[in-house]
C-alpha cells in the first residue's frame, strides 16, 4: 500500500513537469510574437487578450519570452545534471569497484570540490570561462557531480561484496561486464531520484547567478534574467517578477514533487537517503 502523499506527489509533480515541457515546446507557436520584439510604448503591461502574460521591461511579449526562457532554463538544467550524472556515476562506479589507493585519491578530489561553497565555485568558473549557456552549464555540472560520485560509490562498495556479484565473478565475468550488467542497474534508481531533484536546484542556481550578473547574456530570455530584472522593478511593477518568480517556483516544485514521489516509489525503504547520510570515510 502506498501512502496517499506519494501518489499525490508523483501525479501533481508529473503534471507540472509535463505542462512545463509542453509550454517550452509549443508556447512560442501559439503566441504570435517574436521573443525579441520590443515595444517601448507598452512596457510592463498586465495580461491582455493580446499579451496573455503581459509584457516585460522592453514591452516584449512575456508569454513568448517565458516559453523561450523555459527552453533555455530547462536545457541548462537538464544538460548540467546530465553531465554531472555521467561524470559522477562513472567516477563513483570505477572508484568504488577498484577501491584501494585509487578510491582514496578520487574521494579526496571529491572532498575538494565539496569544500567549495557551491555558488562561489560556479561564480569563479563562469568568471574564468566567460558568460554563456555552455559555460554556465559546465559550471553547474562542476558543482553537481560530486553528489552522484559519492552516492554511486557507496552503492558500488556495498554491491561489490554482494553474493550475485561474487557469483558472476566466479563464473568468469569481466570487470566491465560486472560493472555495467550487475552493479549499474542497482545504482540507477537512486541516481534518477537525485537527478530529478537536481534539476530544480539547477534552475534556482541559474537565477541566482543571473542576479549576481553572471547569467547567460541578453537578449537570451532566461528565467533568471527576467526575475533578476523583475526584482529590480519589484515595487513599481510587481507583475514581472511575480510571473518569473512563480514560473521558477512552480517548475522547481514540479520537479521536486516528482523526484520525491519517485524516491518513495522506487526506493520506499530509503536506500539512497541512508547511503547519502552515512558517515564519510
Amino acid at each position, binding site marked *: 500500500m502506498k501512502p496517499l502523499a506519494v501518489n499525490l506527489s508523483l501525479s501533481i509533480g508529473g503534471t507540472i513537469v509535463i505542462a512545463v515541457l509542453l509550454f517550452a515546446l509549443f508556447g512560442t507557436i501559439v503566441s504570435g510574437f517574436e521573443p525579441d520584439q520590443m515595444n517601448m510604448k507598452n512596457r510592463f503591461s498586465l495580461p491582455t487578450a493580446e499579451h496573455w502574460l503581459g509584457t516585460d521591461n522592453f514591452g516584449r511579449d512575456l508569454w513568448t519570452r517565458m516559453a523561450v526562457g523555459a527552453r533555455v532554463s530547462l536545457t541548462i538544467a537538464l544538460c548540467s545534471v546530465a553531465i554531472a550524472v555521467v561524470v559522477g556515476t562513472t567516477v563513483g562506479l570505477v572508484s568504488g569497484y577498484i577501491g584501494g589507493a585509487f578510491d582514496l585519491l578520487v574521494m579526496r578530489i571529491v572532498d575538494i570540490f565539496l*569544500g567549495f561553497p557551491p555558488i562561489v565555485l560556479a561564480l569563479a568558473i563562469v568568471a574564468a570561462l566567460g558568460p554563456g549557456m555552455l559555460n554556465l552549464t559546465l559550471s553547474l555540472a562542476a558543482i553537481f557531480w560530486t553528489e552522484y560520485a559519492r552516492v554511486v560509490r557507496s552503492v558500488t562498495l556495498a554491491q561489490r561484496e554482494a553474493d550475485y556479484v561474487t557469483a558472476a565473478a566466479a563464473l568468469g565475468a569481466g570487470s566491465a561486464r560486472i560493472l555495467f550488467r550487475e552493479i549499474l542497474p542497482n545504482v540507477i534508481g537512486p541516481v534518477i531520484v537525485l537527478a530529478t531533484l537536481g534539476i530544480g536546484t539547477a534552475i534556482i542556481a541559474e537565477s541566482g547567478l543571473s542576479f549576481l550578473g553572471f547569467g547567460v547574456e541578453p537578449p537570451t530570455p532566461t528565467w533568471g534574467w527576467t526575475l533578476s530584472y523583475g526584482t529590480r522593478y519589484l515595487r513599481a511593477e510587481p507583475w514581472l517578477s511575480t510571473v518569473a518568480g512563480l514560473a521558477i517556483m512552480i517548475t522547481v516544485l514540479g520537479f521536486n514533487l516528482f523526484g520525491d514521489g519517485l524516491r518513495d516509489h522506487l526506493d520506499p525503504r530509503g536506500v539512497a537517503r541512508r547511503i547519502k*547520510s552515512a558517515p564519510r570515510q
Partner: protein
Amino acid sequence: MIWYVLRRLALFIPLILGVVAVTFGIMELVPGDPAAVLLGDEASEEAVRDMRRSLGLDRPWWIRLGSYYADLAHGDMGISYFQNQPVTDAIRQRVVPTLEVAVVALLISILIGLALGVAAAFWRGTAIDATSMLFAQLGVSMPVFWFGILLMYLLAIRFDLLPSIGRGPPLAGALVEAALGRPAALLESLSHIAMPALTLGLTNAAVISRLVRSAMLETLGQDFIRTAHAKGLLNVRIIFVHALGNAMLPVVSVIGLRFGALLGGAVLTESIFGWPGLGQLAVAAISQRDLPLVQGIVLTFAVAFALVNLLVDLLYALIDPRIRLE
C-alpha cells in the same frame, strides 16, 4: 575513536593543498588584472606594471603557488590587495557575523522542519500531510534573492516589524547580557538576524521536514512502536520519545551536508540584507580579483565544511551506538 579523529584530521592536509591548487588554477584562468583594477582607469601602463611587480604577480605561477603554500604553512595567508589588511584579519572580522546567521538559520530550519515533518508523519496520508509537504517544498522552490526581497518588503516596510538591513550587536555578547538579565541587546541582535536567517533557513527546513517525515514513518511502522501502541501508550509519547529520537539521525547528518549550501546561500542573502559576512566578502573578492582574499575565504569555507562534517559524524556515532566509526 582517537585514531579515527586523527586519521580524519590528517585528511585535511590533502584537502587544503587541493583546494588551494584548484582555486589558484581557476583564478589564473579568470581574465582581469588585479593591478589594473586596483589602480583604476586613470592609471598608466607603467604604473600597472609596477603594481604587478610589487604584488608579486610578475613571477611565474609555480613560484607564486609554491610561496603561497610555504606562507600558509606558517599560518600566513598574505595581505588582501583591496582591504589593505592581512587576509586573516579580514576573514576574522567577517566569520562571526556569517556564523551568527548560519546558526540561527539552522535552528529555524530544524524547528520548522521538525514541526512539519512530525505533523506530516503523524497524520500521514491526510490533507495535513499533503499540505505540510507542499509547504516545505515551496521553501526549497523559491530563489533566495526573490524571497529575501519579498520578505524585506513585507516585514520591514509594509508592516514595519523588523529592521531591514545591517547587523545588530554581536550575538554572543548579547546572549551574555541577556543571561545577566538585560535582554535589550539580545532582542535587537535577533531582530536584525531574523530575516536573513529565515531566508537562509527555509531551504533547509524543506529538506529536514522530508527526512523527519520518512524517518518517522519508518519508525512508526516498526514492531516495537506497534506494540507500544497496543499497550495503550500515549501517541504523543510514542512520537516524541521513540520516533523523533530515531528521526534525529538523518537530521544531524543533513546538517553536515547542507552546511556548505548554507554558507553558499550566505553569498546572496548577505548582499541583500547588507550583512557584513564572508559571503559578501567572497563576491567582492572575486569581482575585484583579490587573489589572496579569494584563496583565504575559499580555504576557510572548505575547512569549516570539513570540520562540521567531522563533528557530525562523531555526533552520529554518539546518537546511534549501532554505527561504528572505522
